[in-house]
């Protein structure tokens, strides 16, 4: 552990290669503690609605487990299915001190940048999920990362271990109290997906207009295992920079990364996904849909073909709906041997007049036609979502389609 501390201290001033630099000194690492809330009843009705917007159901119905981190306090942690373990990271570190040595800071390099370094040195908890071999979670586990204290930094360290042949869906809903102006969220997430296991991770962001977000996610996927990620951020936020990294380490491992983001005026999003295909038969698909109505988006994507007989596709599509907005799509393919099959599509532009007029010829107004096209553009198939969450995302997409005027 001392090595980790040393590496973290050495990286405390290390800027991230992407995204605007954040002065960590501007955010407090102390926060008021909150009482444990066994029934999630301490949230006001307004707060409940707010967290429901990011897929967190206070009723906990149709959820295999629930975890809520309010500022730095794990205020709720409950599990409703055998074979699935959900703990605050602080408890997991005590309970599994030896086991965690094999996992902590293995997938994510503590020295990646100052955000990972600070999280290692001043961690504000997080969730630990472990699912037993062969266990299939009937419902998703929901985890809410909530900031209510003005001007604080929330440095979260999460870990997910899916043992062989297990199946797990995690919904991570990240949001702030409605009144909150300033805050920083750093989320380090390490996923270990063992042979034949499947993990779906759906992350919904609904931050405030001045919030800075720096998730740092790495995923190790073993033979025959699958990792599916859905990331949705359609509400204003000051800055998000994330570049999750997936290593397909075993034969026939699969990764699918879907991203839907909208940047309103004042939002700065630098998002993407990187997949390294390291074993024969590995397959990956990285799809992003980005819309700007005035904000800036950099949509990155990188596929690294390390061995032969791998197949991967990358798609970065951007729609510019305002003269003030800016989208830069950076798809990259990195092939190291013959026999890799990797491709990409990237398109950035306005909605085509031909499409709008085609729909107008059916009697739709220009506004209605544009809304339908935007809705279609954002209509990325996200597998494994529970019905109510699918409906919620569709509702946000519909509202976005209508509100672009």
């Amino acid at each position, binding site marked *: 552990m001392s090595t980790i501390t040393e590496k973290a201290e050495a990286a405390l001033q290390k800027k991230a290669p992407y995204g605007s630099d954040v002065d960590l000194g501007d955010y407090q690492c102390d926060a008021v503690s909150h009482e444990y809330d066994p029934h999630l009843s301490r949230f006001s009705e307004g707060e409940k609605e707010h967290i429901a917007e990011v897929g967190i159901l206070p009723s906990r119905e149709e959820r295999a487990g629930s975890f809520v981190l309010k500022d730095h306090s794990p205020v709720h942690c409950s599990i409703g299915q055998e074979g699935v373990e959900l703990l605050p990271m602080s408890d997991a570190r005590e309970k599994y001190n030896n086991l965690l040595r094999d996992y902590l800071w293995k997938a994510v390099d503590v020295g990646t940048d100052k955000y990972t370094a600070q999280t290692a040195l001043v961690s504000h908890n997080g969730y630990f999920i472990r699912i037993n071999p062969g266990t299939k979670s009937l419902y998703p586990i929901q985890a809410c990362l909530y900031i209510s204290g003005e001007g604080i930094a929330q440095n979260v360290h999460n870990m997910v271990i899916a043992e062989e042949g297990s199946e797990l869906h995690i919904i991570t809903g990240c949001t702030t109290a409605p009144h909150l102006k300033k805050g920083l969220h750093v989320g380090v997430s390490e996923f270990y997906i063992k042979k034949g296991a499947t993990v779906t991770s759906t992350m919904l962001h609904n931050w405030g207009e001045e919030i800075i977000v720096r998730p740092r996610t790495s995923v190790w996927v073993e033979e025959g295992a699958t990792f599916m990620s859905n990331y949705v951020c359609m509400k204003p936020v000051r800055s998000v920079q994330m570049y999750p990294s997936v290593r397909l380490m075993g034969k026939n491992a699969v990764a699918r990364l879907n991203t839907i983001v909208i940047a309103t005026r004042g939002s700065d999003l630098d998002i993407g996904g990187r997949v390294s295909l390291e074993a024969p038969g590995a397959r990956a698909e990285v799809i992003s849909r980005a819309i700007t109505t005035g904000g800036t988006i950099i949509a990155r994507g990188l596929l690294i073909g390390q061995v032969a007989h791998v197949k991967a596709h990358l798609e970065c599509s951007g729609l510019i709906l305002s003269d003030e907005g800016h989208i830069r799509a950076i798809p990259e393919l990195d092939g190291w041997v013959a026999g890799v099959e990797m491709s990409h599509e990237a398109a950035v532009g306005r909605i*085509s*007049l*031909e*499409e709008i*007029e*085609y*729909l*107008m*010829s*059916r*009697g*739709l*107004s*220009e506004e*209605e*036609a544009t809304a*339908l*096209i935007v*809705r*279609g*553009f*954002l*209509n*990325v198939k996200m597998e494994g979502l529970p019905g109510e969450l699918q409906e919620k995302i569709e509702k946000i997409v519909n509202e976005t389609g209508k509100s672009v005027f």
Partner: protein
Amino acid sequence: MLLSIENLTVEIAEKEVLQDINLEIDHGETHVLFGKNGSGKTTLLMTIMGFSGCRIVRGRILFKEKDITQLPINERAKMGIGMSFQRPPTIRGLKVNDLVNTFNNNGEQTIEQIVHNLHFSEFMERDINLGFSGGEIKKSELLQLIVQNPELILLDEPESGVDLENIKVIGKVIKKLLQKNLRRQRFKSGLVITHTGLILNYLEADRGHLMLNGRIICEGNPREMFETIQNHGYEECVRCQR
């Protein structure tokens, strides 16, 4: 008169594509447009529909006695003009089913019935025109038209790219769309572009027009005109009318 086009001259990208077009279609009539590729047939249909790329330099278009020359596309559609496109755009993510449910104006048949008649059910959850074959595009267009239920139906080569078996399906649907089963009180009208003439068997068309270099240069019985074109080419049809 349902549609009157008077002295219409149209430019696309500052190039004159239609010159001095005059055309009248009455309630219940079906007219056919013949002409070589590039003669201006599609431009005429798109100008009637109101597409912005077709700039009217002179003349006017009356629909139901109202001057629609400056009217936006969707207003024309709402007045009762509908078009089946030869090469419609692909709209990713927009399902056929979601689209047709936004403008359902057909009080007689349900969407399910229309889809069934067109043998199109397996395409309803597909993105509009994405990976559709020629025949599937035509069926999607016809489905939209029937749901839209317009009075003036503009069909741009409804049979192109369609196999013989499906031409029957499409032909029957067009026949019904144009109310050819009604002897009286037929109020739907059509303006149809065809190259192959195969669709003529289903149209019972009233009048044919031949376009050449952006002008309508002759008119007549559509079957006789098509026969002349088929046997002797477009030039002979032009010569014979002179």
